[in-house]
C-alpha cells in the first residue's frame, strides 16, 4: 500500500508543476468515451451516446454522469 503521507519529493514536485491540463483530439475523445462507457456501463461509446441523447439512461446514475462528461470531448 502506498504511503498515506506525501513525501517531501512529492510536495516539492507539486509546488514546481501545476496540475496538468491535457488537451485531446476528438478522435482520442471518442476512443476514451468508448473505453469508459464499456468500463462503467458495459456498452459501447456509440450506444451510450445514442441512449443518453434519447433520454433512456438514468441521468442520476453516477456512472452515467461520469461518462456523460466525455461527450463534448468526442463530438463536434
Amino acid at each position, binding site marked *: 500500500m*502506498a*504511503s*498515506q*503521507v*506525501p513525501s517531501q519529493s*512529492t*510536495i516539492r*514536485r*507539486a*509546488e514546481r*508543476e*501545476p*496540475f*496538468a*491540463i*491535457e*488537451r*485531446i*483530439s*476528438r478522435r*482520442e*475523445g471518442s476512443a*476514451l468515451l468508448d473505453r*469508459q462507457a464499456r468500463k462503467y456501463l458495459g456498452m459501447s461509446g456509440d450506444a451510450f451516446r445514442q441512449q443518453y441523447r434519447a*433520454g433512456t439512461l*438514468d*441521468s*442520476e446514475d*453516477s456512472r452515467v*454522469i*461520469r*461518462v456523460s*462528461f*466525455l*461527450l*463534448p*470531448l468526442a463530438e463536434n
Partner: protein
Amino acid sequence: MRCIAQGTLIASLERNYAVGQESSVLLNNGDPLRLRTTPPPAVYLSLGQRFEIVRDDAITDGPYRVHTREYWYQFSLEDGRELFAFHWTPDAADSRQRRYPHLHVGVALLLPETPILPGVLHKRHIPTGRISIENIVRFAIEELGAEPLIDTWHDVLDQGQQQFNSYRRP
C-alpha cells in the same frame, strides 16, 4: 487541484471555446483519483464540469467569462461506493434531475436500514449553494483528511474562491 493531487484534467484540443459552444473538463480521464488521506481508508475524487464561454459586458475585465452548465464532484471509496456527490444541472431537461445544486449522501455512509427512506435515501437531493472546486478541495483537506501537497494551499484556495465569487452569476 494541485493542492491535493497530481494528475490531469482533460479538455478538447479542437474546440476553440467560441461563445456559446459547450465544452467540458474531466479529472483523470473520468476515473476516480486517489487522495492521500490520513487516517485510512483512501478517499477517491471524481470531478467533471460542463461549461460554455458567454459574453458578459457587466464584468470589468471582460467581456467574456466561463458559465458553468453542470458540475459533478464525487468522493468515493476504493470499491466505488459513494461517500458524497455534489451535483448541479441548471439546464437539465430530464424531469428526474433537480435544477438546484444538491448533495447526495452516498450508500457507504448510510445504514442498511435508515430511519427514513430506507434503501432510497442516497438518491435524495439535499439542497446546497453553488459549490466551487475550491470548496471541494478545502472540504477534502479540512474535513476528510486529505494531505495538502503544497504549503500555500490556503492562499491558493482563497484566491480561486475570490475569483469564483466575483464572476458567479445567479
